[in-house]
């Protein structure tokens, strides 16, 4: 079945079974591979994207349920890696292997849109994505920094 998805401000026509997880439509049909596959059961958060500004685990969202919504992937966050969260991530040299950080960054963007100056407790509560390299120390610092960069 063909339908349209609005991803990073572009309309894509995709021809997939409507129940296909959004993750695989983004990665394999549209070619936006910045969104990662980690567990397929909504646990790890590597596949986090924004749907209407809310952080969503795209492996658990059927593609048809994203029709009409504004989907933002890591590729759509900025044209040049200069979103405040990306800048803060670079300043604190956050990623190690990096494969969870598309999701971490989008989770942080969603957090900051709700809580522009988050406390440590708010960061603890909202940042639930797994990082096996254990970069949490720097993620926390970078989120505080991004909060100031956003002004």
């Amino acid at each position: 079945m063909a339908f349209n998805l609005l991803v990073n401000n572009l309309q894509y026509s995709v021809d997939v079974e409507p129940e296909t997880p959004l993750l695989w439509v983004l990665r394999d049909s549209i070619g936006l591979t910045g969104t990662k596959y980690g567990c397929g059961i909504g646990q790890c958060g590597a596949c986090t994207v924004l749907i209407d500004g809310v952080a969503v685990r795209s492996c658990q969202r059927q593609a048809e349920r994203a029709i009409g919504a504004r989907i933002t992937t890591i590729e759509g966050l900025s044209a040049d890696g200069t979103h405040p969260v990306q800048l803060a991530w670079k300043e604190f040299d956050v990623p190690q292997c990096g494969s969870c950080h598309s999701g971490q960054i989008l989770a942080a963007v969603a957090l900051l849109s709700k809580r522009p100056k988050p406390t440590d407790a708010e960061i603890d509560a909202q940042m639930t994505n797994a990082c096996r390299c254990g970069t949490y120390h720097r993620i926390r610092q970078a989120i505080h920094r991004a909060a100031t960069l956003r002004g």
Partner: protein
Amino acid sequence: MKTKAEMNDMNRREFLSTSAAVGGAMVLGFWVPPESAQAQAGAAADQAVRPEPWYRDAVVPEINAWLTIGPDDTVTIRISQVDLGTGVMTTNAMIVAEELQCDWSKVRSEYASANRDAIEKAPEWTLKVPGKGAHDPAGGGLPTELANEKGVYRRMGVGSSGNIREGRYYMQLAGAEARERLLLAAANELNVPVSELVAKDSVITHAKSNRKMTYGAIAAKAAQTPLPDPLKIKIKPPDQWKLMGTEQKNRDVPVKVTGAAKYAIDIRLPGMLYAAVKCCPVWGGDVKSYNFDAIKNRPGVHSVVRLPLDPKAKEALGRTTKDGFYSGGVAVIADSWWHAKTALDAMPIEWDRGPGGGVSSATLLQSHLATLHDAGKVIVNEGDVDAAMGHAAKLVEATYTVPYVRRARMEPGNATVLVTDNRVDMWVGDQQPQRSLEKAAMLTGLAKANVHLHLCYLGGGYGSSGNGPQAEHAVFIANAMRGRPVKTLWSREEDWGIGSTYSPLGLFTGKAALDAEGWPIAMDMHYCTTVGVAWPADSRGLAMPPYWVPNYRLHQHIARSHIPAGRVRSTGARHNTFYMESFIDELAHAAGKDPYEYRRELISRNPPENQENRFIGTGVGGFRYRDDWLRALDMVAKMSDWGKPLPEGWARGIAIDDRRRGVGRGTGRQGTICAEVHTVEVTKRGQVILHRVDVVFEQGFSLVNPLTVRKNIEGQIAWGFTDALYQEITIENGQGVEVNFDKYPVSRMREYPKEVNIAFLKTNKWIEGVGEEAIPTITPAIYNAVFKVTGKRIRSVPLKSHDLSWG
């Protein structure tokens, strides 16, 4: 379908536009492909590493295999190790650039070529380690794994925290050799003696005649100018370093925060098919039957490939690659991975679970515990343990167990492979590219020279990536589909099920005799490791304990099972440091002494530092770095406010190790000392909160990039904490039960300690490594703190299995 040559020459734009169409999505209206935007952004400023990090043949002068220099002075450095997130894309470039004396802002990094390594011999000047070993600051340290690494890039495999230990000297030499050739070529050009030239920041200056020449201008000539005696090249000791030893941010971070970085899982090729794999979840098991007809008409399904069981695996003897895999299975091939996976899930498969099908971790543990009562193999026997036991004022005996765990890297195993009749192309994130290249040649029957690995970023390694059946499955499947590229991707469950090996189950029983003052006069220790196959019965930390005891005996027990054991970050120290650092804490408690002071006294009682006495004949202990250990211990105690009051329910736990002590007793391995204090709260209901971690980490003469080391240690804290609290693979009916993050949690943000203090300890040697040395001490330090709060001595990992409520 394009030919191979066309594929290789295909430019980036064509690749992207073709792959966008292949996926089945059409873009409506005008748009700019996101990848192009990133490419522009990356090219603009800070992109020292491309989104596609793999090797390219040089189009500008290549001075030696390690580096090329363009006319604009851009230096491209080939990185011979895979960056698992450890920062070698940056650190190794620093090493080469230091000696090259080039402009660091113009340095780019890309991976070295495993193919080239397979066909090109290492130049003679990289073979000999300069200097006098681990204690010579002007030398190359003490590499231990280079004997068989004779290819041009020497050791490409990543493991044992060995990047700097093994490779620093030849990377320094590579930079120095290129610098000397640039100088020689410039001297010829300017008709002056080399000794009158100075090389700095990619410019060669002849002060007398006030002439300058850029590296870019002389590179082509330098490429044609051999050195008369390259064996005379010297490397710089740390006191001459300018770039090495400074904190440099990881150069691949900019492409990792935009989603541009290409991991192997992200590779998309024209005409590419996708494979999903299911193998018998019991190692040594096989497929009894499957019914492809039942799914062949599902959307997008293309074909099925049978993955054979290696007969040796069936006998729990390992495997040969050529003859098959740890367990037999099937792959379904389709036009998308989701189609392949859902079809595979729907396909009826009957398993032959093989000889391991009845095994559980409970039965393994029972039978292995029984073996601990035997004498086993006595591998250390100092003094007269039995006689001394008779004089004990107090006896302490305790048994510890450590479960199977796995690496749980973020990126499930995958590789994209195109096999044609005369060439293999593989896109893979691989810790062992040389081995995978050899295996690909073996599986396809093609020559190694015709196998090309395009090394990608990889989502964690921790001991495994690529080093095992992941790349082999992909090659095997693509070989059955010759002419079409196939991306083979394991589901998370497949990756954790049989994808690779587990860190083995371990058991330990210690018995100590204490004198009237509580000091040990004898220890009788038994350890058992379930080795599976190909696992050294690792005695590190136990064969040469750092604590002085005049009578010491160590018994080794090896239990086999069908579960292949493998290297997981921190390897044998995960077990042995837990045993030793818990047991010594128990002895301190039995003696009524402070655990820091108790350790300190017993380390001090060793004979003083003596270079002749790496290990000694009477009693155990007496080691070269005794005083460094004491400094580390004192430093961490001071840093952590050891002894100062804490709120109710809080406590500090301490542990120290070097992760190497006693590896191959007598081989003189150096280790890296790490001492830690963990400040832990245990609520009355038994919840464990890690508040603060203080780490003293040995840096030796110098670290190369202290920032990456700091980051690595920060990460190791999360790793070790997860190990201590949660991680356990239980075996039931021969297979691992925890095969996804729901049952095998990894620590999250909320659990990460709010305060982490890391201090580096300078010592007079080259350390062994940094990638896992802070991990082994974490579990015992946390458990020692938990004991202090709750009075409960935890002797089996992980904590989640214990009721820690108190008060």
